[in-house]
């Protein structure tokens, strides 16, 4: 414990000395998020310095082993680091699918050479990764993927297409599920490949959503050659890695169902006003808002409770599906009510007044909440089968 207190004191001192002042303010827009990569887009010198300094200590990945560039911290030390950063208002130095997704998979399934080759670059934010899972035809049935990688002796030849690859147009490398055995049952012919997005035959196309621009892309592979040493894990056993990453993803799904930054009733009151009793001047909307806010408060507590149960290992491993389902449906309902509250003002799409249709775009964007990261239907299936243990396929 004394050691931990020392660590806390030293960490605080280091952060105070090394975190640039402009990295101690809340992030406001997308430009404030640092993604690194071969051609990093730093908005400020502070962003560059902050990443460089944190990476040098391995604190972009505090718990990864030092031999791969990580911070080598214990769980307790990592918590202290996070707490001190929060206390000082430090921004995250680096956002990265390499850190969130690929790294944990490589640590678990990669060979030594792969770990030495790829992990340090991730720690330093030198390579920006994207994730190639979904395909236009696969949907919720991810294992039905059709992108194929044929064995051509010294390399695999990859052909196919991925969809919903976030930031594929900005990524340097991709970690990708491919089919390496067309004849096997669908879960048994999948492998996990890494390759450079600059390889000949790779192209991307951004996806415009109903809400407007998005980080999502379609990604096409046309005779892409991938060296065999870039296969992670065992050939045809990639589904195991995929499942590991999917669980990892669902567990880290954020608190989208929690209360909004501005209470819905305030948005409604600003738009519609209060009557002479001090009640929202739309009595039926008031009813909708009050019932919504009850559920918002309760859902926040449900997340808190899940965290407390998880700490005590008293939670079902599939419980995240309950929260994913409930939170995304609640968020959709919230934005339907926000649109009602905003009335015709919130239907504007381009005006400055409407902040370029911010309300409408946010509302439309929520419709994906119950699709991305596993649809609501998939979550309900998981709850029914794994938690409630209902019978059937």
């Amino acid at each position, binding site marked *: 414990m004394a050691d931990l207190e020392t660590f806390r004191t030293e960490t605080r001192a280091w952060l105070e000395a090394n975190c640039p002042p402009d990295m101690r303010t809340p992030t406001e827009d997308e430009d404030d998020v640092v993604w690194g990569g071969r051609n990093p887009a730093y908005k400020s010198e502070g962003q560059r310095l902050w990443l460089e300094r944190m990476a040098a200590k391995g604190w972009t990945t505090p718990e990864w082993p030092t031999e791969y560039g990580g911070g080598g911290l214990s769980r307790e030390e990592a918590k202290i680091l996070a707490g001190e950063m929060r206390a000082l208002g430090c921004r995250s130095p680096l956002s990265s699918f390499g850190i969130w997704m690929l790294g944990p998979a490589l640590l678990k399934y990669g060979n030594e050479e792969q770990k030495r080759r790829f992990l340090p670059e991730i720690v330093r934010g030198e390579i920006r990764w994207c994730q190639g899972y*979904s395909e236009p035809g696969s*949907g*919720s*049935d991810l294992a*039905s993927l059709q992108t194929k990688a044929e064995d051509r002796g010294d390399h695999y030849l990859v052909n196919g297409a991925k*969809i*919903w690859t976030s930031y594929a147009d900005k990524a340097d490398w991709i970690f990708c599920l491919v089919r390496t055995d067309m004849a096997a049952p669908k879960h048994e012919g999948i492998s996990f490949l890494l390759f450079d997005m600059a390889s000949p035959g790779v192209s991307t196309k951004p*996806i*415009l*959503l*109903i809400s407007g621009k998005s980080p999502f892309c379609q990604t096409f592979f046309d005779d892409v050659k991938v060296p065999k040493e870039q296969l992670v894990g065992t050939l045809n056993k990639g589904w195991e890695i995929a499942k590991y990453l999917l669980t990892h993803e669902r567990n880290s799904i954020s608190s989208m169902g929690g209360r909004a930054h501005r209470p819905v009733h305030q948005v409604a009151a600003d*738009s*519609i006003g209060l009557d002479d009793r001090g009640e929202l001047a*739309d*009595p*039926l*909307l008031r009813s*909708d808002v009050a019932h919504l806010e009850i559920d918002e408060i309760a859902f926040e507590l449900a997340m808190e409770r899940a965290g407390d149960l998880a700490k005590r290992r008293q939670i079902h491993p599939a419980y995240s599906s309950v929260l994913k389902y409930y939170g995304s449906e609640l968020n*959709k309902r919230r934005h*339907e009510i926000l*649109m*009602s509250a*905003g*009335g*015709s*003002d*919130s*239907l*504007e*799409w*381009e*005006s400055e007044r409407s902040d370029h*249709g911010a309300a*409408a775009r946010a*509302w*439309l964007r929520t*419709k*994906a909440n*119950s*699709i*991305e990261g596993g*649809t*609501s*239907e998939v979550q*309900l299936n998981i709850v029914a089968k794994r938690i409630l243990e209902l019978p059937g396929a």
Partner: protein
Amino acid sequence: MPLVLNDEQAMLRDSARSFVSEQAPIAYLRRLRDSHDETGFSRDLWKQFAEMGFAGILVPEAHGGLGLGAVEAGVVAEEIGRTLAPTPFLSTAVLAATALTRGGSDGQKAQYLPGIAAGEMIATLAADEGAKHRPAKTALAATRAGNGFRLTGAKTFVLDGHVADLLIVAARTAGIPGDPAGITLFLVRPGAKGLTTERTVMVDSHNAARVDFDDVAVDADAVLGDVDGGYALLEGALNVGRAAVAAELVGVGEEAFTRTLGYLKERKQFGKFIGEFQGLQHRSAHLFSELEVTKAAVLKALQVLDENADGAAQIVSVAKARAGLSAGLAVQEAVQMHGGMGMTDEFDLGLFMKRARVGQELFGDANFHADRLARRNSY
């Protein structure tokens, strides 16, 4: 009257359907949207609508129209809903035509209605002033000045307001906002001094505008109907508009549902058509039931408007409330059941979702109409 279309109405539906699907399919909306078309619809196409009789569907035959009723207007609106065609049908052929026909002097009718029926004049009703539809709360001030009036205030959500050749403006000549009494309708030309119009590009790529009145002078003969007694005329026109929007929403909801059913029958997941999954089957059957119940209410509202316009308020509220809710459910289920594809702009479903949302809000949302129904029934 039976709750089915009669033979003439069914023929009208068929001809409207083939006309709209050929001349104004969804690609038409996309083209206007993506080219940032300044008018927001095609004047040429609107002329063709007029040649089909649709622009003058509610205009008396004496003024060059078809002299048909709300049921027929609803039939056309529903077909417009199926392809999301942006047209001045609602503003001009429904709202303005109804207000002028019911409230206009012989001179006013002769001056404006033939142009409307011919597809040459775009006209609209400016009712809303805030984010929500509250016609009794009209505050835009019309004060007497000499022989006429001067108008000061602002209107929002004015359909086709930036291209209208004639604005029918609800203004307050007496009383305070909230009083039904004291409202007067005025016919205002867009060139009037002190009048500024700002097009507001909407989520559904259909036309709307904000219109500001800064001491705009109008003559006494700009009054439509009675001074201080315009509320009934305003509500009368709005009720026809509400029922027409409800019919359009039936078209929007049904088309979104039809596309979803098609997808459920062709898309496979986990080795099955997704339409085989009982979860989706039950939701589809529920949605179908909601849409069917709504259709009955909408048709009844249109019929009652033709039989007894003054007694139609309650059934219009039922129709508008339900049409908004069931179209809203239809588009949400459509996007969800289509999965990620439904979220892409390339796919059409988002356009249905956007139009449904605007239609829900237009002329009062479900909560407004439920509240109105409660008040009418004294609770």
